[in-house]
């Protein structure tokens, strides 16, 4: 911003050159009276002082006075110091130089200030926009320092929060922004500027309460800007906290609804096999005229329904665990082929002679997966495809890369799934008022598969066309860390 030394010397040189030029002009080319010459000097000093500032113009005033005295005032060719005219000229030159340079400097300063303020406001606006994009407090806290570094072009930023006793940082490691310093500022509760080291510290206040400290290094931010940043941080944190709380209330309410639905569904699901068993047993007990074939049929039903009850109880328990996030995944790096082959081995019996096509894209990265769990999910999809499509049509399993995920799909050529059902098929225990959707078996298979995939950080989806078949897909995250450090 400041002119370099060379620049300075050039400006002084130029000022003296102007004085010499004027002197030569009036000496050699144009002879006019003294007043016109003095006015010309005055005008040139005015011009120089406006553009190059006080130091140059003062030096120029002195030079102009000397030139005027020596070359134009009688006795010409001699410095007549005693002459009053001399002093008047000098004072006039100096006053013009000082006043004009002052005025122009302050005008320039004001313009610079205004544009700096405008820049700060624009930055604060961008900063506030950036903060409002965060949905939750954790994301917000991690975002604040990075936003400050990016938007305000400081070297490093650190935010200390009292209630979390934690420092969130961005930018290069700066020893001065350590936790102890930040804590100390919080206690002092007023901004601190360490100009030699380029450090700013600001207590972050919410109302009258100090909730933390912001520290920046690299360049000094104006105090007003810093305080505005502090206010924005406090507001954004309150906002995020309120949003988060709203979400938690909503989640609690949904959890309650889910528990009711679960109880309802489990009651219904348990009662169906119980009905078959009870009817069969009472018939066996009370009806002596049963034929052997009929007795056998009833006993078979009892056996099958007992198995179904057992499966139901197991799955309800697993669903509850998945819901509560109590299932611990043993996540390891595996090729997706491991999951596919384990699933196929498991389904071998039920698939029978069904044609299964497998397309795994070449050079797929490893996925981060609990193979046993992922197998459960994939088996569910394969079993579904097997159950709901004619036996002479093939099932196709594909695996390919999509961004940071490996997508595994199971496609059947069955009759497809209607739109209204598509929306409900993953709903846990969906049951309408007078109807229920029940997948053959227990009705919990798909929700469990979905929950397993989601526990891995993936997602499950369905596309289906009437009479064309259905494609169930799920994603598993690519193992990054282990891929680079085997």
């Amino acid at each position, binding site marked *: 911003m400041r002119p370099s030394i060379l620049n300075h010397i050039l400006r002084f040189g130029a000022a003296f050159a102007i004085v010499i030029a004027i002197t030569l002009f009036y000496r050699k080319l144009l002879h006019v009276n003294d007043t016109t010459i003095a006015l010309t000097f005055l005008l040139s000093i005015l011009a120089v002082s406006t553009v190059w500032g006080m130091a140059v113009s003062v030096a120029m005033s002195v030079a102009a006075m000397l030139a005027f005295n020596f070359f134009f005032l009688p006795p010409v060719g001699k410095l007549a110091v005693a002459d009053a005219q001399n002093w008047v000229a000098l004072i006039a030159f100096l006053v013009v130089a000082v006043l004009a340079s002052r005025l122009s400097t302050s005008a320039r300063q004001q313009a610079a200030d205004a544009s700096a303020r405008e820049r700060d406001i624009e930055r604060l606006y961008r900063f506030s926009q950036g903060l409002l994009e965060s949905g939750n407090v954790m994301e917000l806290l991690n975002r604040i320092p990075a936003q400050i570094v990016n938007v305000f072009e400081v070297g490093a930023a650190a935010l200390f929060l009292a209630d979390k006793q934690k420092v969130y940082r961005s930018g290069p490691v700066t020893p001065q922004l350590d936790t102890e310093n930040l804590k100390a500022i919080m206690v002092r509760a007023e901004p601190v500027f360490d100009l030699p080291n380029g450090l700013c510290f600001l207590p972050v206040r919410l109302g009258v309460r100090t909730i933390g400290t912001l520290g920046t290094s690299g360049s000094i931010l104006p105090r007003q800007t810093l305080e505005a940043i502090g206010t924005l941080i406090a507001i954004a944190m309150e906002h995020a906290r309120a949003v988060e709380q709203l979400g938690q209330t909503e989640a609690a309410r949904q959890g309650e609804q889910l528990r009711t639905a679960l109880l309802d569904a489990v009651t219904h699901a348990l009662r169906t096999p119980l009905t078959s068993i009870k*009817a069969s047993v009472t018939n066996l007990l009370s*009806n002596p005229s049963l034929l052997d074939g009929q007795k056998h*049929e009833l006993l078979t*039903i009892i056996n099958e329904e007992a198995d179904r009850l057992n499966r139901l109880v197991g799955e309800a328990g697993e669903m509850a665990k998945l819901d509560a996030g109590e299932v611990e995944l043993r996540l390891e790096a595996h090729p997706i082929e491991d999951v596919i082959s384990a699933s196929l081995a498991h389904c071998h019996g039920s698939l029978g002679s069904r044609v299964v096509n497998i397309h795994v894209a070449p050079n797929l990265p490893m996925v981060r997966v609990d193979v046993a769990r992922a197998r459960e999910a994939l088996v569910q999809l394969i079993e579904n495809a097997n159950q709901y499509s004619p036996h002479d049509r093939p099932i196709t399993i594909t695996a390919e890369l999509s961004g940071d995920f490996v997508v595994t799909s199971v496609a059947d050529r069955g009759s497809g799934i209607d739109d209204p059902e598509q929306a409900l098929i993953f709903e846990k225990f969906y049951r309408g008022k007078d109807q229920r959707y*029940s997948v053959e078996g227990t009705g919990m298979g798909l929700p469990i598969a979905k929950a397993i995939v989601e526990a891995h950080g993936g997602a499950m989806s369905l596309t289906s066309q009437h009479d064309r078949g259905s494609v169930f897909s799920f994603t598993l995250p690519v193992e990054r860390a282990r891929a680079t450090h085997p």
Partner: protein
Amino acid sequence: MTSAKVLIVDDEPQIRRVLRTTLASQGYTVVEARSGDEALEEIRHERPDLILLDVNMPGRSGLETCSEIRATSDVPIIMLTVRNTERDKVQALDAGADDYVVKPFGVEELMARIRAALRRVTPAESIPPFLSPELKIDFEKRTVLVKGQPVRLTPKEFELLRQLVANQGKAIAHRRLLQAVWGPDYGEETEYLRVFINQLRKKIEPDPGNPRYIITEPWIGYRFERPHSGKGADKSD
């Protein structure tokens, strides 16, 4: 042994299996339907003598199916429900079911209810027609005319009305009415009476909220009354 034809309507294959085996072992002919729509189809083709109808089915629900069947047929319907609450029972009876069985049920209970539902076919002793300016009931022809317009009654409603008219002017106890209309195994199911009496009143009373024919005897039962001729001629409705 009977050879009545029973239609089983349930979406659960295992329940259909049990019922099929059980009913077949008791000598019934069995027809099956997996949904309400299939049931309506089967009724047209097979003309069953009795329907076992699951309340809880995907698609057209049991209650809807029941109302649909009742629009065209008097066939006895026994509902299979899962919930044992007053509201569910009343809903089933309101939809036009003659009876219901709560899952899980014992086979003897189900068989008793099936026998009771089929029992009405045996003709009872004949009683003379009831004739008043507004209401005419002919028990021989099984017709009811309200202000000259024929009214459809289900077999259970008709049987109930017959019992009430046969004992005109006398209160009949809940238990006696239940046993006379539904069968000897019944007696405690007063909600049946509430629902059926309500439906009867809606069909034959000029003002069902203020009944003149079928009078409630608190704590005892119901009584059929011939209204005074002055009121009977009132055609304000």
